[in-house]
């Protein structure tokens, strides 16, 4: 069976039950693909065993890029391209550059971070986001288990594990 195509979904009503269920399902050796919830659930990342996002690193790198770009741009403009004397200061007067440098650092860090986030979460304009269960945008928590990654586990066993850990419904979902 192909990976990332066919899923078993457990639907949960309550976040406490969900958190426990994540722990129990993982304890049985089943690997959880993803959990979708309408709002952030505290402690869910830890229970799922996710590593921390490396988004801050992207933000920092884009920030450094902004700083470099701003300083180079201003230095080139003010010193070489079109030197002007403003307020009797040197052509390349460093304190004048700081506000623009600050703004560009913040701008590029923010844009870079949003861009990286959107691409990495498949929210790009040309991407088609997958909806496992529409109710996960309203009042249900949805735990998705990829059948292919759990090929060694019996299908019924997965369904049972979800049921016993408190899922109100167990559905299957396939994407083409």
């Amino acid at each position, binding site marked *: 069976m192909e990976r990332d195509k066919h899923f078993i979904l457990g639907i949960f009503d309550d976040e406490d039950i969900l958190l426990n269920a994540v722990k129990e399902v993982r304890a049985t050796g089943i690997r959880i693909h993803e959990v979708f919830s309408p709002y952030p659930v505290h*402690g869910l990342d830890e229970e799922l065993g996710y590593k921390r996002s490396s988004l801050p690193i992207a933000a920092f790198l884009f920030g450094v890029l902004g700083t470099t770009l701003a300083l180079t741009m201003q230095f080139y403009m003010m010193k070489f391209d079109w030197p002007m004397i403003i307020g009797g200061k040197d052509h390349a007067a460093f304190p004048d550059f700081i506000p623009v440098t600050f703004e560009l650092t913040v701008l590029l860090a923010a844009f870079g971070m949003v861009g990286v986030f959107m691409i990495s979460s498949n929210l790009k304009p040309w991407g088609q986001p997958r909806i496992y269960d529409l109710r996960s945008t309203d009042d249900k928590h949805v735990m998705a288990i990829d059948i292919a990654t759990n090929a060694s586990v019996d299908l019924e066993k997965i369904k049972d594990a979800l049921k016993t850990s408190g899922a109100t419904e167990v559905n299957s979902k396939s994407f083409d």
Partner: protein
Amino acid sequence: MAQVKNYNLDQKFDFTDAVKKVIFILGGIGALLLVLGILAAALGGDHAEEGGHAFHWTQRLFANLWINNVYFTGIAIIGVFFFAIQYASQAGWSTALLRIMLSFGYWLPIAAVLMLVTFFIANHDLFHWTHSYVFDKTNAEYDRIIDGKGSFFYWPMEKGTFPIFYIVRMVLFFGFWVFFFNKLKSLSYEEDLQGGTSYWYTIRKWSAIFLVFFAVSSSISAWDWVMSIDTHWFSTLFGWYVFASWFVAGLSAITLVTVFLKDQGYLEMVNQNHIHDLGKFVFAFSIFWTYIWFSQFLLIYYANIPEESVYFIERLSSDVYGPYIFVNIGLNFVLPFLVLMTRDAKRHNIFLKLVCTLIILGHWIDFFLMVQPGTLGHNGGVGLMELGMLLVYGSAFAFVALSNLSKHNLIAKNHPMLEESYHHHI
């Protein structure tokens, strides 16, 4: 979720002899350095200046007293201010740290006495406007600019006599600060005994009133105690600048005490999430301070009006103070910005200890740069006397705060938001 832990809420901080010994040793080293510094300065002798004013070593002593008076008053009032902020903003995460903030306020009465006494002894050495001749039109030293500002110090009395308005403000500010501190502290301690949510509401009400008063008084005290040293000069955001410096130093001190108590095994309910939030505060307000500092600098630098730029020319072009401007920026901006940027650094005590200690030193340098150029000119600098005085004040402050911290519960055990603080998670 819903794991109820049995924290020992009645725990008290035991101010052991070992801790006292460390504080006394630090204070002793400070006193020794101070005496050595005074001896060196006194034996170095007085020397005449080109202007005709003789420089005397006591001036340097008084300037030092003034730096530390203002600085440690700031750290003390920031403890009370941050406490009040927690209530006004209805914050729950900080519940376990409230008593640490409160303990700083015990320094306020001492600071008030020290400041008044220093002012009465050293007014002529610290503040040019205290000389009566600058208001005397017949005197060669008559100063039209100071004369124009004189009413701010002397009203309603005649300029050049007794600075009644200035003294009244100083007494009033300290009086109200101590009053509000006592109010908040006694309500908080009473809550320990009685319980219930009514105390929380009462404290919030008093906190809000205090914050309004503090907003005005912190700004005016900055003009009075610091900006009036350079009497001709003015900066409209100086109040914020001094407040920002106080706030970062105060937050660093709160963080250091928290980490110290954690290391000693107290504050079981404080976990890395609380420490992380304190680290964020130190990080964020270091940048806030930089923003204020740079705003003041950039406008003055760009406009280049002599009456404003003299402040920075006096500092940047001086052999004595020039390097410290860069030390100031390095310790108070570059260091916290780069070191505390990552999540991991804010969650590890060792980084916080290092950065907070250096920030406390850094903001002392900030106040050093505000006070000494205007009072001592090129006779100033960081020497034995400065280091000694800082250590003496620092250890006295630590002693007062910690000994009062040990008298009550470390945690406000009946605080209605205690449960929220247990589960604080970021």
